[in-house]
């Protein structure tokens, strides 16, 4: 206190505050001041925490330290700490209510489909059915650990915790990380005596093509499944819980060992071997890495004015005046302080498949500022980010140093024609009508296919319409060109007089139905963005 009082007369501006207080009182201005240093000073734009806008925090990982788990990991992402433990328990097929029914239909289906191509398809479908319908993966994230002041320890899971749990669950499902085969416990019944075989055949007389093989060996049957309880305790929360939680889940699953298990006829139960040598690690498909971003805007209301005030020309003039100064920053791996100042987030999960980067999931919600160009850029960053956690676990430090070259070109050809045609036919009418009249006919609102709104953002365009501004929102679902029944992603966008805005993009929600080959690559995103740009132009371009 004494020092400030002596210093006060010396300084002409007595209203100066120490940085820490300024940060608390004017968080937005504080971060803005860091990001946009005066052009005269020639300093690079830097965040309040000392990182460059696209810089991730240092990550460290430690796997296999918890005794009572099948697999465990501790991830520290800066000051955010997540502990994940995987516990495997057994689900007997006797305990599954609908097991015998679904099993027989499946078996019939498999028999009828003889073609080899479709067999993989059914197998995939069966994998999916087993993991998703039987709830074999049970991820739960707990924030009630005193990790941050806002969460009451004894209270039920907060909205954030619930949303995180479900995001992890859907990502586990869509990325098809865990193979169903690893979780099945088979039983090979011994060969029956001749009389019994006879009897058996009598029973299955109806089955036409069953006979031949069955006299030699009975088919192996699934007796039980492993259920993986994946529990994440966020011990410390300093921003970006999703990346930390996902990284810990991934690391713990890579660490997970399942004991060898068999059906014991005498005990009529599943027994396991405790021998480490006989246990098996999970064989995971790929290594999807998630990267989260948030968008910090110099003037958060600017986008809103653009939408609400249709005086486009004037606005544009003003915009060009300010164009010398950056208006938004995309911050990678936001900390808690930054998360409190933004409304727009982007989650990108990428993986590498045969040397190519594929997008496993992409989600953008809230806000209006991130355009197609930015999204492309973010995928690049995610692919390069080289999240150190994974390299630590992997000991493959250059795994993610791969740069995205123009790998999209090949796919582009297959995608574009079909996709464009579909979208043109669907939306051009709507858009044209919109241009003619002020009122939109009700039937032109496109009802989304299977679009339930996974994440609800604060600034729903629906609220705009309530204020008398007609803004169209188009939930658009993209189909696979080679497989017209399989959607691969969806995005919401809306259009108003001056601009078109992507409101919510969610890629990967439908990946589970997309077959094993067609994970969307960057090319799809390129297509998506082009389609969007085209739509934004009014469908004439």
């Amino acid at each position, binding site marked *: 206190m004494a020092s400030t009082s002596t210093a006060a007369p010396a300084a002409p501006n007595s209203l100066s505050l120490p940085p820490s207080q300024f940060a608390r009182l004017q968080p937005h201005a504080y971060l803005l001041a860091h990001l946009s240093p005066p052009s005269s000073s020639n300093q690079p734009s830097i965040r309040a925490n000392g990182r460059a806008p696209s810089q991730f925090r240092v990550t460290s990982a430690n796997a296999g330290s*918890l*005794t*009572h*788990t099948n697999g*465990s990991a501790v991830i520290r992402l800066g*000051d955010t*700490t997540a*502990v994940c*433990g*995987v*516990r*495997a*328990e*057994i*689900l007997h097929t006797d*305990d*599954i*209510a609908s097991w015998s029914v679904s099993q027989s239909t499946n078996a019939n289906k498999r028999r009828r489909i003889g073609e080899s191509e479709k067999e993989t398809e059914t197998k995939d479908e069966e994998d999916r059915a087993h993991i998703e319908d039987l*709830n*074999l993966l*049970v*991820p*739960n994230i*707990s924030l*009630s*650990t*005193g*990790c*941050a*002041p806002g969460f009451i*320890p*004894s209270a*039920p*899971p907060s909205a954030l915790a*619930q949303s995180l*749990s*479900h995001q992890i*669950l859907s990502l586990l499902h869509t990325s098809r990380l865990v193979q169903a085969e690893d979780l099945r416990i088979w039983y090979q019944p011994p060969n029956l005596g001749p009389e019994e075989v006879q009897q058996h055949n009598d029973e299955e007389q109806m089955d036409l093509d069953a006979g031949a093989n069955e006299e030699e060996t009975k088919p192996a049957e699934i007796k039980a499944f492993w*259920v993986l*309880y994946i*529990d994440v*305790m966020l*011990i*410390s*929360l*300093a921003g970006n819980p999703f990346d930390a939680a996902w990284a810990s889940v991934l690391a713990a699953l890579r660490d997970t*060992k399942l*004991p060898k*298990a068999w059906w*014991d006829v005498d005990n009529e*139960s*599943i*027994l*396991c*071997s*405790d*021998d*480490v040598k006989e*246990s098996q690690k999970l064989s995971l498909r790929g290594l999807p890495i998630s990267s989260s971003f948030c968008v910090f805007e110099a003037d958060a209301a600017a986008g809103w004015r653009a939408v609400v005030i249709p005086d486009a020309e004037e606005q544009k003039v003003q915009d060009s005046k300010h164009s010398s100064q950056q208006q938004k920053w995309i911050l990678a791996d936001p900390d*808690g302080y930054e998360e409190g100042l933004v409304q727009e987030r982007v989650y990108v999960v990428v993986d590498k498949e045969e040397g190519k980067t594929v997008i496993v999931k992409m989600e953008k919600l809230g806000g209006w500022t991130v355009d197609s160009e930015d999204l492309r850029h973010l995928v690049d960053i995610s692919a390069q980010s080289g999240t150190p956690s994974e390299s630590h676990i992997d000991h493959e430090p250059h795994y993610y140093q791969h740069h995205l070259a123009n790998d999209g070109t090949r796919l582009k050809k297959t995608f574009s024609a079909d996709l464009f045609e579909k979208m043109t036919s669907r939306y051009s009418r709507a858009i044209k009508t919109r241009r003619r009249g002020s009122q939109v006919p009700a039937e032109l609102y496109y009802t989304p296919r299977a679009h339930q709104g996974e994440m609800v953002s604060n600034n729903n365009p629906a609220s705009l319409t309530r204020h008398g501004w007609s803004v169209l929102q188009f939930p658009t679902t993209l189909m696979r060109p080679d497989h017209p029944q399989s959607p691969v992603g969806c995005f919401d966008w809306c259009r108003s007089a001056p601009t078109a805005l992507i409101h919510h993009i969610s890629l990967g929600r439908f990946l589970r139905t997309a077959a094993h080959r067609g994970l969307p690559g960057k090319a799809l995103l390129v297509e998506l963005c082009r389609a969007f740009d085209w739509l934004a132009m009014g469908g004439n371009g």
Partner: protein
Amino acid sequence: MNDRRRVNGPPGGTRPPVYASLLQSGTGADTRAQRQRQPTDLRKIFLKTGLIPSASGSSYLEFEPSASLAAARSNPKSLIPPSSALKLACTVHGPKPLPRSAPFSPNLVLTTHVKYAPFAARKRKGHVRDSSERDLGVHLETALRGAIIAERWPKSGLDITVTILEAEDDRWWGDVPDSHDASWGMMNVLAGCISAASAAIADAHIDCLDLVSGGVAALVSDDSTDSPSALPKLMLDTDPAEHRSIVSACVVAYMPARDEITELWLKGDSSKVSTADGDQRSGHEALIDGAVDAARGAHTVLAEAVRESLQKTLGQS
């Protein structure tokens, strides 16, 4: 009832795996965890403060793995862990103003929450606190309330949350689960909670009479096969997995500077104890003294951790 706020597993429920080797009697008898320490030796403790920046005080505590566990870690043979070592994190939020609805309090209002992670114990725990966790919370609160000088923060609240990532076992895994179903491991957990919470409170710069530390002692009859008449022996800082039969155990929260106990929990039959000649103490007195000695040991670790935390804050400012 289905918990709709969480992701639920299969509706029919699942069963923990049953290891075939357990079905044959006498498995693992040769690998049975044995106490390698002297009766008065304590396990090493790792205690660090200030790991969680968003909390006003925090600490992380870990017990040194027992010899058998360390061996199993370095050279894994069986999937069944021989014993486990306590690991827990503690956060302190506050002092902060009480909610408007709360009645006036002239003192600092302390709330404690102890929660096991679902994967902390040999048996999977639920997400909702069960009665043993609530019980631990009350014990912890009693232990801390005696140490905190609460009248310096009227109208304020202090939230203490302990998350147990790995708990101590109640017995050796090979023993018949019902041979003694008393939860001895809980007492070790409580002792750890007390020490960790004390460090976290010091890290939050809340005035205390003294650093209160937790200690466990137990009366153990290990060699029941040789001479059944042998009296139980006193051991400090017992790991239940290393003993054949714990007769009684005691945990204290102790303040060395005042030589006072703020929390005492003793259970089991302490009537018989083999003591040195000339030792006139009865069983429970010997047990309490033993637990106090263990707490004194933990106190040295605690003091070191708090000194470290203080140096860090001084270095920062």
